């Protein structure tokens, strides 16, 4: 999947992946796509909850060898 910005949150534990993601999102334009990689198993639920509450769109989520990849489209506003 194409993306505009990447955020490496591997080997970080709650709540750091969310905080890093938030910071990266504020640095990109509306509707641009951020790719986040994380190893915290809790991040799977957390990123779903994050997107549900903030209005950013979780486009895709992959799990490969316990490395989780999320593609989030920044909300339009």
């Amino acid at each position, binding site marked *: 999947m194409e993306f505009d910005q990447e955020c490496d949150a591997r080997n970080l*534990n709650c709540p*750091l992946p969310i*905080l890093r993601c938030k910071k990266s999102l504020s640095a990109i334009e509306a509707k641009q796509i951020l790719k986040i990689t994380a190893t915290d198993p809790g991040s799977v639920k957390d990123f779903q909850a994050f997107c549900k509450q*903030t*209005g950013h769109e979780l486009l895709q989520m992959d799990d490969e060898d316990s490395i989780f990849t999320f593609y989030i489209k920044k909300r339009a506003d």
Partner: protein
Amino acid sequence: MAKGQPKKLALIASKGSLDWAYPPFILASTAAALDYDVQIFFTFYGLTLLKKDLSDLKVSPLGNPAMPMPVPMPNFVQMLPGMESMATMMMKQKIASKGVASIEELRAASIEAGVKLIACQMTVDLFDFKKTDFIDEIEFGGAATFFEFAGKSDVQLFI
């Protein structure tokens, strides 16, 4: 959802040990990332969390039977000099090795995200704290100040 009035979170942080420093800063920084307006009111031992130097935050196994220890340790051993420092050192190593943020990091993230930190003025007077011991990004206030924000908050927690 992200539109209109942001949700609000009001926290009271009343504890000043290394382990109990986590909940308020984790919740505050995360809520701020979820676009909440957040205020933390620091009272009694919680004031310690606003000091410039956080390196003397400690965790004690004493009176904390649920704390995981590498070997079973009776209370009379835990009270020996140096045991608290050792437990703190072990906890800090564990925190770093598991990729858990430091308190300094979470506090900085909270401040950067606009979390408002309020120090209980009464506690400052009670314990003769010096205002110069604290970081600059705080305000001083009392219980009424807390309620001004907590009264219209969506979530209020005492930690």
